Structures are given as C-alpha cells and as structure tokens.
C-alpha cells in the first residue's frame, strides 16, 4: 500500500519540521541585494491535498488538488506581478525527461537545507552559518529553454480534518489526549538560473491554512512566499 507509506513520510516530515519550529526563510549571504527577477519559471508544483479521516488516515483528494494547483499558480502570478516581473509557465504538470535529474538534484538539495538549516544541532560547520547551496550550471538548460532568469519550486502537502476527525480532536481535548487535526506543510525555493544558487528558501508548517479556494490559497501562497526577494 504505497499511499500509506507516503502519508507516513508526509507525517514524519510534518513532525520533524514542526518539532524544530522556526519557519524563517533563508537567503544567500552574498545576495542580500535585490536579485532582480524579470522572468520567473514556475516549475511543476508538487502539491497534494487530502482529507484527514477520523482514524487519522489521509485520503487524497484529486479535485481539491487540481484546484489548488490552479490557485497556487494564480497566486504566484499575482505576487510576482507586484514585483514587476512575470511568470513563465513550465507547460506541464509533469517534469520532462531531460529535466528529471535537475529536479531530483533539487530534491536532494532541499533535503540538505531542511536537515542542516531547520533541524537544531545539525548545522554543518563547513557552512559557517552561510546559506550557499546550489544546483550548479545544470540549470542553464532551463534558462535557455524558457528564457527565464529564476525558477520557483513549490512543494505543498495539505490535509483537512473530516467532521469525524474534528469530533475526535474535540473528544481528545476534553480528556487530555493529543489528537492532531489537519495541517499544512511545504516549502518554496527560488533558484537563480544563471548561477544555480538557491537564493531563497522558505518552509511552511502549520495547523491552519487552506488551498481549496482562491481566496484562502492567496493567503497560503502569500505566507509561503513572504519575503521572497524581488
């Protein structure tokens, strides 16, 4: 049952992120100046919305997810517009074969950032507090193909308590048992397509937030991208 394993992973991710709290974003040290985004490539958004059932199992919801993907893209477009830049669409929800290694590398880099920047006691002494992860020059391919200067990667997992789950949370609170409700976890990272540098990274892990409607999604994406450099 693959989906069970995956939800366990998402749960673990949620746990270890919330345990280590502090969702501040990071920026490259040498790059506190404006990064000058003109054309921002939005990579296929890795998003999944699910219903948290009374028993605590996440039931994926395709309709919510499809809507969320649209809402996220719209919200990103609006935010980027206020920065006098424009969004370039990737053109598909699926990663093209020639970009697969770049996206997998980004996953590994994101993993390193999560563990070494967000988990306490795990800072790498070699980094000396700097935030200087990069995808290297592999990203040139994306820059040329899309004529874009930066790329934005978004990963989101959202779950919403069913009415049964809400009742379980309520009953739990009455008798002092900790029953978790729905949660929102995810991250966004901004990559310079000339240098490959991850110039900005932000983590979102909270018990609220919604991506099912356009308005709510605007709030979530606004929080996720808060402080994204111009």
């Amino acid at each position: 049952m693959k989906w069970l394993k995956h939800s366990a992973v998402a749960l673990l991710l949620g746990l270890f992120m919330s345990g280590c709290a502090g969702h501040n974003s990071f920026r490259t040290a040498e790059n506190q100046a404006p990064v000058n985004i003109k054309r921002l490539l939005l990579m296929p958004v890795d998003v999944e919305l699910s219903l948290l059932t009374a028993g605590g199992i996440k039931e994926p919801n395709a309709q919510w997810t499809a809507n969320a993907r649209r809402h996220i893209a719209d919200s990103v477009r609006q935010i980027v517009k206020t920065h006098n830049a424009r969004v370039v669409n990737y053109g598909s929800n699926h990663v093209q074969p020639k970009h697969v290694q770049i996206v997998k590398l980004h996953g590994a880099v994101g993993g390193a950032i999560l563990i070494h920047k967000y988990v306490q006691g795990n800072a790498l002494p070699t980094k000396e507090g700097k935030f200087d992860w990069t995808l290297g020059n592999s990203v040139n391919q994306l820059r040329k193909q899309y004529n874009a200067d930066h790329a934005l990667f978004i990963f989101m997992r959202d779950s919403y308590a069913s009415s049964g789950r809400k009742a379980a949370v309520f009953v739990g609170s009455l008798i002092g048992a900790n029953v978790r409700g729905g949660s929102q976890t995810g991250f966004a990272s901004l990559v310079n397509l000339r240098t490959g540098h991850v110039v900005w990274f932000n983590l979102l892990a909270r018990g609220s937030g919604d991506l099912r409607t356009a308005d709510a999604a605007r709030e979530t994406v606004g929080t996720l991208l808060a402080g994204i450099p111009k």
Partner: protein
Amino acid sequence: MRMRTLTLTLGAALILGGCATGNMSAYESGLEGSEHDTAASTAKTEDIGTYRVTDLKPGHRPPLNTDEGGLWMKMDKAEGGLRSSGNIIEDPALNAYVRRVTCRVAGKYCNDIRIYLARVPHFNATMAPNGAMQIWSGLLLRVQNEAQLAAVIGHEIAHYLRQHSLKKMRNTIDTANSLAFFNIATLGITAGLADLAAVGSLQANNRDFEREADGYGLVLMAKAGYDPLEAPKVWQNLIHEHRAEKGAESSAYFLSTHPAKRERVNALRSLSKKAKRRWSKARAIGRKSYLTRIRPYRTRLLRDELQLQRFKRSQALLNLLKKNRTGMSELHYFQGELYRLRNKSGDRKLALASYQRALRTGRPPVELHRAMGLLLLKEKQQAKANQAFDRYLRRAPNAEDAEMIRHMMKRG
C-alpha cells in the same frame, strides 16, 4: 445497465460468499458463474463481462471528486516517479514483448494497463489502481514460459479490474475510523489490542483479494488461449525454491503455519483443472517463444540473482533452468560462479570444472576467463591463471579492470 446489474449481483455474492461459505467462494463464484453462463450461450464467451471479471469499463477514469479519483491522482504521481526510478528496465524489445502478452490477456483493457519492468532480483509483480503494473526481473527469470507469465499478468489485471486497491483503501480508512474513538477513550492504552484485531481483519481481506485475483486471473489467461494448468506451476516452483533454501522440514512448518498459502496453491490447482475443462482450447504454453525472448537478458538477470548470495535458492533456480536445455553454456558458467562465490571447501575445484564444461558446451560470457584466472591464482597456478587472464583481455581489451589484470599478470 446490464453490466451494473451484474456487478451488483457479483458484489452481493462476494459479500455473502465471504461470510456464508468461507474463503473459497470468492473466486469460485467467478468461475462457477461463468460455467452457468456458457451453458446458456457460447456466443457470449468473447465478452469478458460475461465472466463477471470486471467492475470497470475500458478507458475507465474516475471523477476527480471521488475517493477513487484521489487514489488515482496519488498513483499517477507515483507512476511518474516509477518512470524515472533507478531500476527501470528500458530495453524496447523486452518491453514490447511483455506488452504483447499483457494485451493478449487484457483484451479490450489493453490500453488501460501500462507495464514497468523493474530490475529487482526477487519474484514479484504489482498492480496500482490506475493500471500501472510493475513486473520485477526476478519474476521474468523464474517463469518458464509465456503461459506462466500470462498467469501472473492475469492475476495482476484482475486486481485492477476488481478495484482491489480502492477496496483496500476504503477498508483501511473504515477500520481506522472505527478504532479512532475507542483509542481516544482509552487514551491509547488498549490500542495495541484493538489495532491487532483490526490488522487481522484487514489481512483476511487482502487474502480474499488474492484468491479472487487467482481465480479471475485463470479466467483471463484461459480466455486468451493460455493453458491454465501452467498457473499453479509458478507457485510450485517458488515453493520448491523456498524449500531448497530453508530445508524440507522448515518448509513444512512454513506451510502449516501459513495454511492460507497451502490452501491457495491447492485451490489454484483444482481451479486450473476446471478452467482447463471449460476452455479446452486454451493450450498455448509458449515455452520456446518465451525462452528465446528472455535469453538476451538472462545473463544480467542471473548475475543479479547471484549478487543476493542466497546460494541454496539460486541452486534450485539453476536446476530448474537447466531442465530447459537453453543456453546451457551460460548456465554452466553461472553454476561455476555460484561455487566460486559460495567459496566452501572444494568449491574451487567444482567451479573450475563448471567453467570447463561451459567452455565445452558453447560460448559463455567472457567474464568466465577472468573468474577462471582468479581461481587458478588461488590454486597457486600462476602460469595457467595468466593464460586465462590473457584470454579474457584478448576478448575484452577495454574491460573496466583490464589495467588491474595486466598488473596482476606482471606481478606473477
């Protein structure tokens, strides 16, 4: 309309069958049902629906706002990962061949099933609810003919057509829900007990799904013209391997503590006979065509198998493959490799003898000469070892270890 009624009837039969007459009825009903149907009309036999094999229409795609839609979304995504995963076998000819067999078994559902061959040296195949079927290379090495491959594929397609994953998801969610309040109320103290019972009932469900897939798999393969008597042989061979690894005694223990397994094999055997009587024209075995197709990949698959270092099992497998009398030279080489890697006392001599046999029988992989050189070195026969290395280097001058081997030859 008719389809829906049939599905409903079958659904009811399944539920009733599960409670009233025990485990056997789940897939028996599929087969028995079909026999009754054919008595009424043989013209219908071309229609898979007649056999009540399916819950799905060809080209099925669930609406987004259903739990099934959610499950498919999840699986579509997982399939993307599968496509770019590290162990996928991309070889077009092998993929095309398995695809052809799949289509023959799947009939009008051919376009709904996508196959992914994974390089994993164990026996397994899986089916995702969205029609993504995985077949592991260890299975391709073990099945002996096209009919046996079709049996496994039929079993997996049955999981798809009967929406077993969806049912499992619903069962899991329902079970977890039913436990939620109980666990909270007892602060989780007794959760262990309750969960255990729940897991037990889930496993029972899964067993029923497997049995059902066995039965419907037989129908599918027989309808495609494959001899259903080949299906239980897949299991027999696996049990044989297991027995070789664990010893007969432990294997008897294994089967007695897993009555479900023994029962499943027995049931499959008797069902396959019924299927054979019903589809007497289902005679295709395709031994030669299968062995010819798999032959170009067998070297790699055998290498992967020996990497696992479970020599008793691998020996049983080699014995089975030797019965086919195809590519004997290669099999003698791997027999030698098994001895060399096992490295018990006396194994070196056995290995060298197997290599000699391989050389006499045909054209074994070039690595044979390297392996021979290695063993001769161990036997302190440097001159002979150098001759073997020399043969290896002449055949594979650009081998990844050529420089090291030249160095080793010089030293001697």
